[in-house]
């Protein structure tokens, strides 16, 4: 019983970590576009770093690393404990697929940034637009699931 309680606590800690990471990925992701300075957000004391592209670029990478670790953990855990716990719901699958596509496009953009890598300009435009579009889709999906109280697993 105690064990099960611990499990639940760990799981909700994991969820908060995930939400925190997505929050910062969104923040530092949108900071890649030159908007926070224009709209005074970087003028708010303590938020000046949002206008420093190399800082937000680095932080986006750091949080992406955490997201990748969480994703690896969840996929392996879901697969290993398949018979012991609930299954992903439809909305869970939808959100997991969006996150997966964000990771794929993001990883390709990371590869683009490496020295000596020259991707075709059209591919880069596609990746940028897709990554941004998927990020917005994930936020929308998250908001809808929150309002309709749709869980990831049942």
């Amino acid at each position, binding site marked *: 019983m105690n*064990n099960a309680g611990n499990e639940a606590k760990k799981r909700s800690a994991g969820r908060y970590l995930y939400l925190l990471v997505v929050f910062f990925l969104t923040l530092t992701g949108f900071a*890649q*576009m*030159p*908007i926070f300075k*224009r*709209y*005074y957000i970087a003028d708010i004391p303590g938020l000046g770093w949002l206008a420093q*592209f*190399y800082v937000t*670029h*680095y932080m986006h*990478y*750091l949080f*992406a*690393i*955490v997201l*990748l*670790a*969480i*994703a*690896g*953990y*969840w*996929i*392996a*855990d879901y697969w*290993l*404990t398949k*018979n*012991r716990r609930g299954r992903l719901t439809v909305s869970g699958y939808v959100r997991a697929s969006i996150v997966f596509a964000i990771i794929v496009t993001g*990883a390709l953009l*990371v*590869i*683009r*940034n*490496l*020295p*000596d*890598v*020259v*991707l*075709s*300009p*059209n*591919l*880069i*435009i596609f*990746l*940028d*637009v897709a990554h*941004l579009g998927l990020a917005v889709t994930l936020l929308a999906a998250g908001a809808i699931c929150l309002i309709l109280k749709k869980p990831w697993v049942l």
Partner: protein
Amino acid sequence: MEKQLSRRSFLKSGLAAACAVSASSLPRPAAARNETSQLATLIDIRKCIGCEACVEACRESNYDKFPKPEKPFPKMYPDRVPVMDWSDKQDVRDRLTPYNWLYIQYAEAEHKGETFYLTIPRRCMHCVNPPCVKLCPWGAARRLENGISRIDSDLCLGGSKCKTVCPWKIPERQTGVGLYLDILPAFAGNGVMYKCDRCYNLVAKGELPACIEACPEDVQKIGPRDEIIREAKKIAQEIDGYIYGETENGGTNTIYISPVPFEKLNQSIEKGPGKPHLAPAEDSMEDGNNLAAAMLIAPVAGIAAAAGKFYKMTQSENQKGGDRE
């Protein structure tokens, strides 16, 4: 050997390479390692006499690419958004502007008991891993396989991020042109960024960039990057001189040779908006790229943690008799 890569001979040897390079720069999804296909320029500032023939040639040759802004400009919000209008100052030649992609810097320096008066042609360095291109949020800036970085004026929104992240602050903005006018001109974008595109259209045809062609003193050469660096080092050794651009910002495709240390030139030249420095520049993309390896390890670490947890769980279940179903 000295003349190996200058003017006409580029047309013979470089032409074939350049054509091959531009033919293969059509959309191609795969990543390409391209150290050898990159063309670099060598600028021997000893030879420059400051005649500005290159500046004129650049302006003439690229005239059709210059902005033709529509006035009046749409009002932009909030009020702090700066209107950058160079269309009434197209004659300015003593700095970089959207209408002047190349200008001459003046330097006076003492070295080894001698006073040098040097003139230095300045424009985009065409970095090997250009942050202006890589960090453009829309892919409006592009790096070609032949080492050219250029900003597509049909796609650029003029947010000026490329200028902010450029170690030399090269791109210059003109308000009132470009794609942003068709989207939300009041709230996003602010024109188009302009800079030297190393005459990509001429190079694609196997011709020389206009500034190289026009120079009466053969100050510049263009050729494969490794050959250009080899030649620069040879000259530097012969004249006990100095090189700029080989390692700056992780390496550029513009290699300057000077008889005077660049610190001294950098002290002497006028610096400021549109007037780039000659100071050391660290590789801007390096810190982020160093994290890329950690990105490969991260999912593996996550999987290992899950496996560890699963192992512990089965262990303790086995001890308790293992009927949790």
